[in-house]
């Protein structure tokens, strides 16, 4: 795990703290320090092109900067960030003229050549995982990414605007679909 934004360390806004510009600055600094990875990975699951992904990440941060002024702490900061990031990513996808790429997985990844270096192997595996996630239909992609990020079904439901049961069902479908896709290299 690469950073300090795991569920156990998540932060809730102080109860009753009034939203406003001063608190926004504190929250934004905290978000950038602890949840940069979360934002980056959500963007990664939607956009393959590096330059467009950077644009998307910046768009998410800008939206967060604007929205944090109204953050009341009804949910955790991490859930709030994930919700904004998912919404901006969906907007990003809908703005683009082309379909999301759901092409067959890279031939090279289907039969990876043996790598003595474990890091290289890990990188290949991660690349394959990212590609597989990107190949999932949008509803399942959203659910599995949030699930991988350690959100509970209730929190996933909150982010996606569905019930916890529907979130559970969607995550299960996503797991099955992802397993089938990942199975190509296992």
């Amino acid at each position, binding site marked *: 795990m690469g950073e300090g934004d795991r569920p156990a360390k998540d932060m809730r806004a102080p109860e009753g703290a009034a939203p406003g510009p001063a608190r926004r600055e504190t929250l934004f600094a905290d978000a950038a320090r602890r949840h940069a990875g979360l934002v980056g990975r959500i963007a990664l699951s939607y956009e393959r092109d590096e330059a467009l992904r950077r644009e998307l990440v910046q768009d998410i941060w800008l939206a967060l900067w604007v929205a944090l002024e109204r953050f009341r702490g009804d949910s955790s900061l991490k859930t709030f960030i994930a919700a904004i990031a998912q919404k901006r990513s969906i907007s990003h996808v809908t703005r683009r003229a082309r379909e999301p790429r759901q092409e067959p997985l890279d031939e090279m990844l289907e039969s990876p050549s043996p790598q003595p270096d474990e890091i290289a192997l890990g990188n290949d595996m991660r690349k394959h995982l990212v590609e597989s996630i990107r190949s999932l239909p949008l509803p399942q992609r959203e659910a599995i990414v949030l699930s991988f990020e350690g959100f509970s079904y209730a929190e996933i439901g909150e982010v996606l605007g569905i019930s916890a049961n529907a979130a559970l069902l969607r995550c299960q479908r996503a797991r099955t679909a992802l*397993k089938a896709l990942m199975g190509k290299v296992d």
Partner: protein
Amino acid sequence: MNDEEFGRLAALWQDDADPAETREAERLAARARRRGRFMQAIELAGGAACGAGIVIALWLRPVSPALPVGAALLLALGYSVWQRHRLAGIALLAEGQERGRFLRNLARARRAAARRAWLGLLLFLPTLLLATLFLYLRESGAPDGFGTFLAFRLTTPRGIAVAGAATVVLVWLWRNARLLGAQAGRLERLARHYEADDLP
């Protein structure tokens, strides 16, 4: 996929502890914050400049009937700046509905915007022609010779400039209508993904 496999993949998914990527993410966040502050400052500065303009205008020519109007303008301006600032944050938080429904609503709105754009495109040339005819009738009093007048006007520098501007507007309208149509189609397809996923 059992829990062990899931845990392994979750760890792999989160394993992006590349210091360069972390620095880049922090840099993007800092840039976004600067951009946000700048945009907010621009909005406030714009409001302040308009307000200052009204005050200066009133000070230079303090005509009594203009004073209440100026005061009302200042109030409206202040209210508008404050509300715009407030609504910017709310707009980002407002969408709390289920994603599929949200996408369907968005698709409907985009489809309507596309229809409006096509309508604008279809009506642009006839409207321009009617406006020219209206101006011609005001001058001459009868429609006779309008064709000759139009042909002559199109050879003058002013006529060429208007025709050029009209072409630019037409191309822009056409491009906009196509873009909106494509976006609506895309949103409808995405909404269908959610419908398919909601089936038992």
